């Protein structure tokens, strides 16, 4: 079955006309967004790609074909229900095998972004080290979170500057990043801590880590949801950059423009 056949009547269907760069070079960049049966923020990730000016391509977990996409986003949700461990079952999806193969192999390898559940999937698939356990307070937590972009050289953060702060919604129950000390030291030493919580650690994550990358910087995973801070009026109430007011925060857009710019060179 092809991924186009799983189209459903969507309220949040992406409207290409809202793209900021409808005919520019960025729109040539094809960013795939993987849908698992329990994916929830897949349409939101596609909307974010479109708003950033790229072309969003829907990918189906059960397919074997990456459809020549230039980058892949594994969105948030509960891929297969995630009753066992977040991301544990998705790792074995046919499409994940393709992604794992394409993402390994240096800086020219396929850029992959895992958001929330997607980050969990990437750790389960061993594309990124560490893992996530339950939040230290054991609750699901949804809130606007302040982060610092620690590494602005990855494929997904080039549009930020190192040290820049952003406000991005966070929403999860199993968001506490853990890894052994050696791994943590390695991540710090190699500059692979990409995002760090500032002000308050929302879940007990080691060393306030919110997002990390692989060595080459093409694979990035983060717990907060940049795709929910891309459109004024529907994002967080604040921004680290300007005074925005009601749901005006768009600090997450840079994640998506970063990969598009990187890919057009």
């Amino acid at each position: 079955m092809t991924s186009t056949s799983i189209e459903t009547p969507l309220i949040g269907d992406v409207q290409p006309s809202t793209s900021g760069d409808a005919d520019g070079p960025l729109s040539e960049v094809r960013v795939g967004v993987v849908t698992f049966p329990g994916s929830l923020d897949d349409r939101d990730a596609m909307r974010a790609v479109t708003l950033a000016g790229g072309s969003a391509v829907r990918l189906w977990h059960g397919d074997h074909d990456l459809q020549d996409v230039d980058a892949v986003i594994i969105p948030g949700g509960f891929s297969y229900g995630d009753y066992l461990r977040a991301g544990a079952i998705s790792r074995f999806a046919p499409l994940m095998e393709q992604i794992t193969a394409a993402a390994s192999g240096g800086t020219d390898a396929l850029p992959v972004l895992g958001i929330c559940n997607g980050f969990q999937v990437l750790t389960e698939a061993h594309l990124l080290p560490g893992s996530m356990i339950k939040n230290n307070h054991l609750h699901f937590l949804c809130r606007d979170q302040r982060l610092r972009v620690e590494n602005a050289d990855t494929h997904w953060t080039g549009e930020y500057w190192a040290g820049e702060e952003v406000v991005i919604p966070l929403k999860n129950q199993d968001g506490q990043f853990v890894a052994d000390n050696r791994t943590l030291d390695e991540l710090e030493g190699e500059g692979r801590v990409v995002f760090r919580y500032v002000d308050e650690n929302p879940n007990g994550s080691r060393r306030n880590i919110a997002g990390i990358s692989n060595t080459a910087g093409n694979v990035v995973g983060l717990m907060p949801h940049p795709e929910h801070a891309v459109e004024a009026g529907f994002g967080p109430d604040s921004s680290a950059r300007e005074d925005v007011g009601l749901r005006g925060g768009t600090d997450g857009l840079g994640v998506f423009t970063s990969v598009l710019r990187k890919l057009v060179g």
Partner: protein
Amino acid sequence: MTAEAMARKFNIDSVANAAATPGQELPWAELGLTEDEYRRIEEILGRRPTGAELAMYSVMWSEHCSYKSSKVHLRQFGDKVTDAMKKHLLVGIGENAGVVDIGDGWAVTFKVESHNHPSFVEPYQGAATGVGGIVRDIISMGARPVAIMDPLRFGAIDHPDTARLVHGIVAGIGGYGNSLGLPNIGGEVVFDSVYQGNPLVNALAVGVLRHEDIRLANASGEGNRVVLFGARTGGDGIGGASVLASESFDSSKPSKRPAVQVGDPFAEKVLIECCLELFKASVVEGIQDLGAAGISCATSELASNGDGGMHVELTNVLLRDPSLTPGEILMSESQERMMAVVTPENVEAFETIMDRWAVEYSWLGEVTGTGRLVIEWDGETIVDVDPRTVAHHGPVYERPYHRPAWLDGVQADAFDAERAGDLRAAVLELMASPNMCSKDWVTDQFDRYVQGNTALAMPDDAGVIRVDEETGLGVAVSTDANGRYSYLDPYEGARLALAEAYRNVATSGAEPLAVSDCLNFGSPEDPEVMWQFAETVRGLADACQELGVPVTGGNVSLYNQTGGVAVHPTPVVGVLGVFDDVARRTPSGWREDGQAVYLLGTTADELDGSEWANLRGHLGGRPPALDLATEKTLAAILVNCSRDGMIDAAHDLSEGGLAAALSEMALRFGVGARIGLDELCERDRIDAFTALFSETQSRAVVAVPRSEEVRYNDMCTARNFPTLRIGVVDTENQALDVQGYFNLPLDQLREAHQGTLPRHFG
């Protein structure tokens, strides 16, 4: 057939067997039927029912499914609807949920339901499956669910059992709703000892569809196939009817049946996507969700709403528990199941979609022209009934009711106690109180972002969802109820609940269009409770007519009563409004320095039933007066202000009065204001305490940019609506400064407001 199935076959009670053994009395009482009801079933069938038939009638004629006590009153919702009110109504009361036209070919469906008792028994699963059930109602209309809300009521905040319920229920709503990818955009959290053994867990869902996508629950077209899909059927929800475990009704053989239902949100999420794909491919003719009364309900309703006949082979049902008897299969309330009617040509397309989503399905039978619902068990007929007698011609009771004798005494006992000398301390006490404190501890456990269309959510007055990404067309929804007002006067209480929800929607800037309600009451067998119920329905129907908003559907929950103590009558009213463009929605907090703060409406001394009286342990007198013509004008002004960009913030006044509104507006974005009460007190001849704490209706506070003040005042004058400038937004001063009375730093106010729930629930 397996040996087990064989054995069961010899045990089943077929129609032929029933006809041959007329003298055998079935255990109708254990199944909750009265003797009269049982005789009536015999009369309808012209013989004794089979075990399976008895199972069907008993669940379909239960209070929950048949509305037998409430029906005679609920008719008013239909009778009092005018043609003008019907203008936007695509589907009215009677279907799974009402459908409202919001323009541009878009429609919205919404409904509120209760899951009270299950949530008391098992808070997490009870609340979770409550969300699951209301969402399936929405799907079965052909809509994509886009949001949920959760009006909740608990016992006293410091009662030892309250923490168990709060933790479980909040986690259950979040656990299910968050996993479905539905933003939670609002609700209520109320604490009152009357709900101690009977917490109220209501859940509202909103769905969106194109006009042409509306699906109804009917089975038409002879030869069309009937299919059950989704989760397998287990023994859920038949605990009380375990007498059915042996069809020979030998009660010495107890069987294990689950005491509670466990939800599988992942299964439901897949069901949503898979149903939407079915709709898009146009491969289902009719569809029905399975909730209360399971297959009994789905088959009899589909059949009686359609051509009237259906033939089903029950052994085809996929079981989770192979020991279930036919009667139990018919009654089972296992979650995450749907039933559909499919033409023979579409069978293959249907199966392809099921396979793609890995959803299990089983073809049960077909639509017939016989007018009978015939259910077989391996070739033996075990049910042969006119489906209308099951689904629609259940018993209807005109239960006796009378006004409680105690009410006069209660109404005479007006609040005349303390009027707090220290207003600053009073505001802090109010804003830290269980009902007025910040609900962030609850709402932070819900995803309000998913789907990317949430334009307003907690803590604003209404939840606002964008429907059309091109035009910004969208809807606003608010739910409200005040059990104390309803206790003091159920007729007025219902009108007040509607007025508040209506006002909340208008405050956000949306035009109110339609209503859904969930009526939570004690036992209908108590004539005083029945009177409260009758008065509530009358009040709500009258008020809907006056405001011109129709009830499109809802739910009745009775027997919320432990021992002799019933909950306060609690009519939870949900109002849905529409926005041409959600970009113009009005937030509930001010932000711009120097903007003028205006109060709309006048204030009288109305403290009976108020939050302040509640804090003083007093409940008596009469609820605030309500004039719906005034309410309507206020709403028109608020919508107009939003449309013409005349205001930057608005908050309605309800529980806690002006004190609560000003505090919440200041805390929303952490911006202070300077407020003066003198002119207000003088104009309305009240003291400062009354100005701050009275709960007079039809009022709102707005923040008006300097440049708009003239236009704003002209508009209020033109509509002859009183408004008064009571202050100014002050970004310099991080405080709520009520001049001449107190200066309350926002940090201190916030600490009081936000500390309460975390302190009790960690």
